[in-house]
């Protein structure tokens, strides 16, 4: 194709000028380059952030691997180009192109965006625009690719409803081949062409697919959201998420792409389990990825062997939302360590529970290198930790840190959240006190064991963002001024040497809340903000809060009315038609228990709390206790 040659020629000239040219090559080890003429459907996986972030995402490798295993389909990749590369593209009028074959993205049959984070939405518009694809779904005719999107933010995708043709709810590997089959059959009947209006109707019949154009949002006379309704007869009134029943049967990428440049998570990813039922009430992932499903140890070890052979990485990460919860984590860890120690392949755990068991695990995996350890008590007082259902006590934390210091670690990072429901300044004092206690304990122990090093504590504080499908979905976020005031207050409280205090940009958290909870009207704001140059909003150096404010003014929406006002449980929510499998009545019950400071146990360890997942989705917890 002529365009490809043009792009190649242009790349020759531009790559030496831009930062990190390796982001744009697409010839990494295990990248799949297929013949365009030999397949029936061409997918493009679009990650609306920079290469190093996107390539660290396991979901990309899973979907890419699965689609490219099919002889009838191909899948290529594109990431948000960094601002210097974008400037070069625009200067020369080169359309955004795929990495593998340098094909302009508008020539694909279907482009799938992954929605990992609300603050990447402006990049989606920017990528479509760079690809010369009309931004509004209704302005894209049959000749343009179908634009789909999935991932956690698809559980309230309303701010993107005008731009995306259809959303996918749930786990992509469960549904992507069904989408492919419908699309391929549709095109086979039409000499390789598509009729978008018909195709979308066919796609809407697949469980888990939500086509926003077939639904109408209603507002009452005061402009308040009054619900969403299907406007066509054969369209489902509710869309239920798709779930992989048995992780052992699911496709897992054993030949993942190995990047040339260092990415955020530059290691093998071995997914040991999916889901988490600890039940933290602010946590969206804990709801969306239910039920807990473990992969068997035997399969995991086999997969680790193959990954090591096929990637050459020197580190294996046992990934999941909470790896220390894997039923057989100790035997698994020992097996993998023994197997790979001789090859100098290390093992890492992404997150640690606050208990001594986890410290033992950390001790095992970090036999050689002692990097810092991170724990997340999330709140400063027992009262507030009970409210959020974080079942960690101060004594747990102190015991754990004691053990950690005794083992020779000196750096501990503590994660907290600020602005949680019912929070008072006493809870903020609690954060400072807790950090101080940990530091003091550290000093004592290091002195005791004769270490000359001083302990170093990092207190990292993010702001609470109420998320859809959680018990806190009806909550108001603290106003921006309050969040900033609390951040400053904490700064005056944390003054000791040996404690580093850092916090996230509250303006970003505020917009995150607006887009997490917002409805379709936000589409106009997004468009305006993008027109004003907003992109890479999750990156502080690119975030332009003033432009966002202007966009809201222009459209006539007040963001505070979305982020900072509590919702009435009796009112419809913009995401009520999207079903995570967890019942609203359960979320309400959990909300009530939060206010009463009552905790709820993990259903793996205590009784079923009837969240609805196993009852309604015909799935079950899949633990691998005692299995070899």
């Amino acid at each position, binding site marked *: 194709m002529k365009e490809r040659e043009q792009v190649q020629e242009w790349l020759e000239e531009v*790559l030496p000028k831009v930062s990190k040219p*390796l982001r744009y090559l697409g010839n990494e080890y295990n990248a799949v380059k297929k013949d365009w003429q030999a397949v029936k459907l061409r997918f493009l996986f679009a990650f609306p952030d920079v290469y190093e972030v996107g390539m660290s995402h396991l979901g990309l490798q899973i979907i890419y691997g699965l689609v490219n295993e099919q002889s009838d389909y191909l899948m290529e990749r594109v990431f948000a180009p960094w601002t210097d590369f974008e400037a070069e593209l625009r200067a020369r009028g080169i359309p955004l192109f795929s990495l593998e074959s340098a094909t302009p993205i508008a020539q694909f049959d279907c482009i799938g965006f992954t929605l990992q984070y609300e603050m990447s939405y402006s990049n989606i518009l920017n990528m479509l625009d760079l690809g010369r694809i009309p931004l509004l779904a209704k302005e894209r005719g049959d000749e343009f690719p179908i634009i789909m999107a999935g991932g956690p933010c698809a559980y309230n995708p309303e701010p993107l409803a005008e731009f995306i043709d259809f959303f996918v709810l749930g786990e992509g590997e469960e549904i992507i081949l069904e989408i492919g089959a419908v699309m391929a059959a549709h095109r086979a009947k039409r000499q390789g062409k598509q009729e978008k209006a018909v195709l979308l109707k066919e796609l809407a019949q697949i469980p888990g697919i939500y086509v926003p154009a077939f639904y109408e949002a209603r507002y009452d006379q005061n402009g308040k959201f009054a619900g969403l309704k299907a406007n066509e007869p054969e369209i489902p009134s509710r869309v239920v998420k798709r779930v992989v029943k048995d992780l052992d049967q699911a496709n897992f990428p054993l030949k993942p792409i*190995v990047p*040339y440049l260092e990415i955020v998570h530059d290691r093998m990813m071995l997914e040991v389990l999916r889901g988490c039922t600890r039940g933290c009430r602010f946590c969206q992932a804990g709801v969306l990825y239910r039920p807990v499903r473990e992969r068997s140890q035997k399969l995991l070890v086999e997969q680790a062997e193959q990954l090591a052979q096929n990637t*050459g990485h*020197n580190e294996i990460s046992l990934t999941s939302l909470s790896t220390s919860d894997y039923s057989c984590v100790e035997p698994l860890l020992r097996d993998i360590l023994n197997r790979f120690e001789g090859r*100098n392949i290390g093992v890492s755990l992404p997150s640690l529970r606050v208990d001594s068991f986890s410290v033992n695990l950390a001790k095992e995996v970090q036999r*050689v*290198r002692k990097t810092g350890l991170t724990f997340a008590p999330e709140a400063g007082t027992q009262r507030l930790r009970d409210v959020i259902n974080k079942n960690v006590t101060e004594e747990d934390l102190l015991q754990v840190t004691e053990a950690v210091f005794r083992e020779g670690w000196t750096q501990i990072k503590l994660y907290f959240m600020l602005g949680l429901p019912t929070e008072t300044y006493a809870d903020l004092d609690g954060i400072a006190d807790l950090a101080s206690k940990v530091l003091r304990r550290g000093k004592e122990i290091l002195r005791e064991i004769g270490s000359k090093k001083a302990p170093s504590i990092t207190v990292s504080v993010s702001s609470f963002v109420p998320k859809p499908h959680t018990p806190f979905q009806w909550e108001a976020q603290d106003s921006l001024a309050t969040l900033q005031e609390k951040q400053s207050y904490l700064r005056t409280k944390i003054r000791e040497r040996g404690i580093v205090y850092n916090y996230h940009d509250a303006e970003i958290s505020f917009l995150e809340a607006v887009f997490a909870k917002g409805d379709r009207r936000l589409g106009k704001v997004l468009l305006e903000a993008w027109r004003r140059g907003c992109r890479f909003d999750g990156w502080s150096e690119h975030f332009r809060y003033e432009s966002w404010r202007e966009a809201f003014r222009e459209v006539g929406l007040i963001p505070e009315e979305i982020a900072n006002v509590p919702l009435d449980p009796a009112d419809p929510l913009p995401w009520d038609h999207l079903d995570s499998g967890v019942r609203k009545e359960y979320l309400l019950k959990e909300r009530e228990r939060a206010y009463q400071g009552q905790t709820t146990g993990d259903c793996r360890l205590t009784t079923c709390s009837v969240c609805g997942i196993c009852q309604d989705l015909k799935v079950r917890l899949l633990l691998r206790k005692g299995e070899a």
Partner: protein
Amino acid sequence: MLLCLQYSKEEEARFLSHLDLMTAMERGFRRAALPLAFSEGFNPHPRVSYASALAVGVTSEAEYLDVQFREELAPEEVLVRLNKALPRGLRVKRAVPVSRRKESLMALINLACYRVKVPFYGWADGNTGVRETIEKAMSVPAYLVQRQGKKGVRQVDIRPGILELAGSLKEENGEKKLVLEMAVRTGSSGNVKPEEVVEMLKALGSWRLGNNLRIHRLGLYIYAEGKKWSPLERT
């Protein structure tokens, strides 16, 4: 056993930094399941030592590394297995067992040969010919270039470090190019960059040259006793 490998860094890999290249090589060795030897201590590293860091954007047909294996292996087998496991743009061309070196490979290498393509926009005043222009430029006793160091800018005389320099004009895709071939000092005993040689020719020759250079390394040598030795044959 210690093997010296000659490898190329081709078009597809030319944007790898030296660090990226070392990572890519280690992953290649691991995928090929070759029994790498590791350093002792806190943070074990594979025992691979590189001859010279190649700048980003530069291609080469003769890079070298020494690699230590825990077992004896046929060099031919290493070459075949590694080439199957390396990413596009990196290729091993020769593998030769070597004895322990007196110094590290990087310390021994002191001469590099390059081919540089420079856009040629014509003569500034009358045609004097490439050879004459180069001869004239090379006849200066000294040529100072500015180098940015940690302690600020310093001046370095590059002329003694240019051992050979020749050029010719070629037509490539309808564009005229000055194609230079040069042998220059590299390493701690004096280091000359090909860009600096071009800078000198621009200043001293009566021609108009462009900035968009394509640099290709032709070889790395141990220059001793008036002779160029390949690191594969001299330790």
